[in-house]
């Protein structure tokens, strides 16, 4: 994979220097900082709303650290995954359309190296952003609610990370296989919806990445969840998507 290191360096530098920094990392940091505060403020917000509506009585249990973590995980499962899909849709297609891929690939940078750098940088950014967001969430939750359910939360985050990593590689593949960013994003969202639907079918849920989507609640509460098979299929699919991305990109003319 000639040129991989130099191109990976460019990818990481691009994240620091462009809007990419404010996409996934920005979202995760924002969620980490605000979700626990919002969880704590929810009863007060509901109470204020109820006061404006005569006759409406709202009873809301006192929020806990578990609520803060559950809300954070809920946001990861929806908002953050959609951010992964949308930002990932242009990683290869965008470079093809801008002509930058042509200027890079006429040098000793192989197409496999190009794709590998895209996948590795995407995974590295995901890892750092998730670690930062989760750490901030724990820190703010500690301040607001005190220490509890941290182990369950960390496990939940790690499981989500595996699922998000799958979507990073999926988007590298879709972006390499399709000529435009929008269809790649659309296909990514379709896969997301399909996985969500599969969570309702135990047979599929227990054998596919859909199992990771459905495990949050149990993991947060410290209950056992059988995730070995879903994790294995997630890892296998992630590798498959990278290989497929290389094959698809090799067929493309620039």
């Amino acid at each position: 994979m000639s040129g991989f290191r130099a191109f990976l360096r460019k990818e990481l530098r691009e994240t620091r220097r462009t809007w990419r920094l404010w996409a996934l990392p920005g979202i995760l940091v924002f969620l980490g900082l605000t979700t626990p505060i919002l969880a704590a403020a929810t009863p007060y917000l509901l109470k204020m709303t109820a006061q404006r509506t005569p006759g409406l009585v709202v009873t809301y249990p006192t929020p806990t650290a578990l609520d803060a973590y559950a809300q954070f995980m809920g946001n990861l499962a929806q908002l953050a995954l959609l951010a992964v899909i949308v930002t990932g849709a242009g990683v290869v297609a965008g470079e093809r359309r801008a002509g930058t891929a042509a200027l890079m690939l006429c040098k000793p940078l192989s197409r496999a190296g190009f794709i590998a750098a895209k996948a590795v940088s995407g995974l590295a950014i995901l890892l750092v952003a998730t670690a930062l967001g989760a750490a901030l969430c724990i820190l703010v939750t500690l301040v607001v609610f005190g220490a509890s359910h941290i182990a369950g939360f960390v496990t939940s985050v790690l499981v989500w990370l595996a699922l998000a990593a799958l979507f990073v590689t999926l988007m590298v593949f879709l972006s390499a296989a399709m000529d435009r960013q929008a269809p790649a994003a659309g296909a990514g969202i379709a896969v997301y919806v399909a996985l969500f639907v599969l969570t309702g079918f135990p047979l599929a849920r227990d054998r596919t990445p859909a199992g990771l989507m459905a495990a949050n609640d149990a993991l947060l509460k410290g209950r056992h969840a059988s995730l070995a098979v879903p994790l294995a299929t997630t890892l296998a699919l992630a590798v498959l998507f990278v290989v497929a991305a290389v094959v698809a990109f090799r067929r493309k003319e620039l």
Partner: protein
Amino acid sequence: MNGVAAPAPSPTAAAVAVELRGLTKRYGRKAALDGVELTVPAGAIFGFLGPNGAGKTTTLRILAGLARPTSGSARILGHDVVREAKAVHALMGYLPDVPGFYKWMTADEFLDLAGRLFGLPSPVLHERKDALLDLAGLAGVTTRVGGYSRGMKQRLGVAQALINAPRILLLDEPTSALDPIGRREVLEMIAALAGRTTVFFSTHILADVERVCDTVAVLAKGKVVEQAAIDELKARHGGAQRVVIEVDDPARLEAALQGAAWSTAVTRDGHDLVVEVTDLNVAFLEVPALVAGLHLRLRRFEAAEASLEDAFIDLVDGEGS
């Protein structure tokens, strides 16, 4: 600039820089290239001419490894561009017609990235970057590429194509976006590479070709219709032999020329008469005698040089008809 370690060329590669054999590229039923045959000698400054849509960019993209031929072969310095892409990329520099840069980078950063992709050691890379930024007139420019004019981008494009001190430089319309000064600078840069690097550049600006190229090929409808040295091409396809005459009363001379056996056509160009002749030597003997016989004053009398434009139009029209 220091040289870059590159694969050792074969004896054939040393003599031939580009070799296209039956190169065909089809997009569906349309043939962009239709059995192109071309040999470019090493060290040449080679002009690749053709009208829009003739297949120039497709040929260059195949040579750069960005597109695949449908059939036939393309070799650079003896290496097959499909099967030995890595070796080819190490030896060449390429500037596309519209180079795509990372807008967030500076010129220095882009050259740094390009040099690192070639695996240049840091001291060599720094030396080259400085020299090429200077050459491109971008030394000290700290603006990001996104804020560059088209001319600046084109100059950076040439600079990045030279970062590996290539043995062959492929340039697709390198001067089309430049102002006259920028054009002159790029052409001087290309001319300075003569003998050291093979330059293969496509263009439809014939004046550029006449200025720097020694050999040209004309591509029309996906086929090479002619390949020759410029003078040879002009002699073969530059049209009829002509003389330009300026006298004080062109109407009288024009009437006299109509009856001359050696004159095949007479046209007025302002005060000048442009006469197509069957034999230049005869014309040089007969015209002064004719002018003297009519008691006219001869102000100018010269042979009109066949132009590359005439040759180009002749070849392209010939292919079209």
